[in-house]
């Protein structure tokens, strides 16, 4: 690859565009509203939202990697948060145990979906949609059963610190961290690193991507396609549960409302970040950037006094525009692949002729 190729590649990569867009928007909003740089009132809540929604986006991204979808991200997040909350309230579980139980519960729901999809052969939409309906009913019912106020607020040591502390609360001697950076963002960074490592370095990840780009070819290459489908759905449930737990920790209480606004965000992040709906390609960093962009736009508009309704109209429009871009990318990629095949065909013909 020549140098100009690489520069062209960086420029045409939509992550570069996203970064530029984010910088422009931050500068623009900051210039108009200096309040935007306030660590306490804007930066901290914004980074907390980015942290939570990035995990939600990753949860959708891992399923998109095999060309499927998880419509139950919100429900799985609610289950994860609920199980963790119950473990804290009724089991007096320590922080990490409750978190682990929540993740296992979310993963189990995801795995159930994956098994029905992979071995029952049912479309992923249908299964996860039906699952989201079942969870929509199940979660409030269980909350009403275990806790009179339908919300669980617990004084588990470490929970509120994890959810609300910022780096400035962490001091070694007299030096404290910078203001406005929530601890939760580090949980997200760890999750991003793990998922990136999985897809970039591990055999499982490569197999998953191959399954997504062409499942028949993957099956013929001795890749256990059904097992990979179950893997991604389990992982998706686990990540959704993590996001639900993080939201519960940051707001201080576990309620049935957790996860209700996850669905749109879960698609916005990966699609803006360049993950293909058709499967076969994922971008962890792109998902993070996509979420960052939407959260910044959201926060900025809130500063300008735009109401929730305006935000919804805007976010829906962004999704539609991103989708059209996704389609264009897909068509272009397809053409490139076709060209490659034609080239390969002629080489074979030449070889045969010779």
């Amino acid at each position, binding site marked *: 690859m020549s140098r100009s190729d690489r520069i062209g590649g960086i420029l045409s990569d939509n992550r570069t565009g996203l970064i530029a867009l984010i910088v422009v928007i931050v500068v623009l909003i900051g210039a108009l509203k200096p309040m935007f740089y306030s660590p306490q009132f804007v930066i901290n809540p914004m980074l907390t939202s980015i942290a939570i929604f990035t995990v939600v986006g990753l949860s959708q991204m891992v399923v998109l990697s095999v*060309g499927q979808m998880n419509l139950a991200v919100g429900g799985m997040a609610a289950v994860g948060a609920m199980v963790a909350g119950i473990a804290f309230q009724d089991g007096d579980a320590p922080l990490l145990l409750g978190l682990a139980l929540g993740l296992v519960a979310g993963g189990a729901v995801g795995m159930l979906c994956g098994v029905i999809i992979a071995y029952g052969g049912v479309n992923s939409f249908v299964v996860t949609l039906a*699952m989201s309906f079942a969870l929509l*009913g199940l979660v409030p*019912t269980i909350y009403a059963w275990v806790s009179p106020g339908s919300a669980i607020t617990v004084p588990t040591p470490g929970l509120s610190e994890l959810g609300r502390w910022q780096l400035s609360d962490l001091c070694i001697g007299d030096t404290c961290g910078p203001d406005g950076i929530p601890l939760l963002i580090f949980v997200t960074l760890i999750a991003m690193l793990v998922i990136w490592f999985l897809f970039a370095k591990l055999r499982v990840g490569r197999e998953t991507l191959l399954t997504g780009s062409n*499942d028949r070819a993957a099956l013929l290459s001795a890749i256990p396609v059904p097992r990979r489908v179950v893997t991604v759905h389990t992982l998706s449930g686990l990540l959704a549960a993590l996001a639900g737990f993080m939201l519960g920790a940051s707001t201080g209480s576990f309620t*049935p409302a957790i996860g209700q606004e996850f669905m*749109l965000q879960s698609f916005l992040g990966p699609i803006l970040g360049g993950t293909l709906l058709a499967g076969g390609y994922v971008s962890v960093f792109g998902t993070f950037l996509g979420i960052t962009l939407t959260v910044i736009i959201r926060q900025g508009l809130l500063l300008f006094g735009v109401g*929730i*309704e305006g935000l919804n109209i805007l976010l829906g429009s962004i999704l*539609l525009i991103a989708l059209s871009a996704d389609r264009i990318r897909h068509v272009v990629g397809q053409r490139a692949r076709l060209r490659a095949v034609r080239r390969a065909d002629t080489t074979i013909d030449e070889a045969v002729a010779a």
Partner: protein
Amino acid sequence: MKTRMGAMLRTQNTTLAVVIVIGTIILTIQSDGRFLSPISIQTFFQFLAIPIIIGLAQMATLAVGQMNLAVGAIGGFAACSAAILIADVGLPGWLGGIIAIVIGAVAGLLNGLIVVLTQINGFVVTLATMTILAGAQYAIVGTRTITAASWPELQAIGAARPLGIPLIFWIAIAIAILLALGYRHMLVARKMLASGGNPLAAKLSGISNNGSLVAAHTLSGLLCGIAAFLVLASLPGANKSIGGDWLLASFAAPIIGGVSLVGGTVAVLGTVLAATVIRLVDSARAAFQLDPSWVNLVIGAVVLGTVALDRVRTQRRTAPARRRPPAPPAPAPTPAALTRTIDEGAGA
């Protein structure tokens, strides 16, 4: 003829009818017969009309293998816009009712056009339009409730009780019958079913799949508009919450009613019966004074069970047909074949 009778007995509709009869008996016994009193029956059917129509609206998109997440948003937006036009702009009530229906159809048409132009799965497109329309609905009505006193003509329709049963229920039934006849006899509807059943075969038979998609989404939007009309006729007012809880009901009725989610089939009677069953569950919930989330739990579990069972049933039916002779050795991948695989991958 005998086998046909046998097949009829085994269909989903029979099961649903039995469930309805048993449910009615249980509720009647539980309420000491009050469940069958005229007022109770009127309320039952009054709140059954809208679920039937939104179930049919979802069915129209499912028939071409698509989904319409924006059912509630289209209905809510159409009802609220019409209400604003009547109350604030001063349009006559009947015109507002027609406008609600037209807005629904136009929104559906736009959904269909976006799906066809971007070639993106209808689910994601309607997720986006749902968000946009729900935002727009809130933007136009805000926190106010426009009372139904502004449109007495429409309220008269909602209050009419021919044969002791609300007129709006008769309207819903009439629309269901029209749809059933249409899906059986009309060319455009047969084309939609063909596109939903096997897009490739439909294309090779000279049917425009894109045309079918647009037609199905428009029909779905039109039905949402009719649901909005019924909202104006029967509810005491219009506000931002209208349409918010339609999504589950819209999917549950066709799925339980036996509509295949991969497209190609419709079940108008099944959808109507399933909507009735859901209404019974809701009545039972009220009779036993349970939390409303129980209804969602029961319906969600039934939908999940139906989806899983349906698959088992179809697999058993098609299992012998799967034993085809081995395919001839595949030729070298041609660009056309590759495109097809990619498209199939995208559609999966």
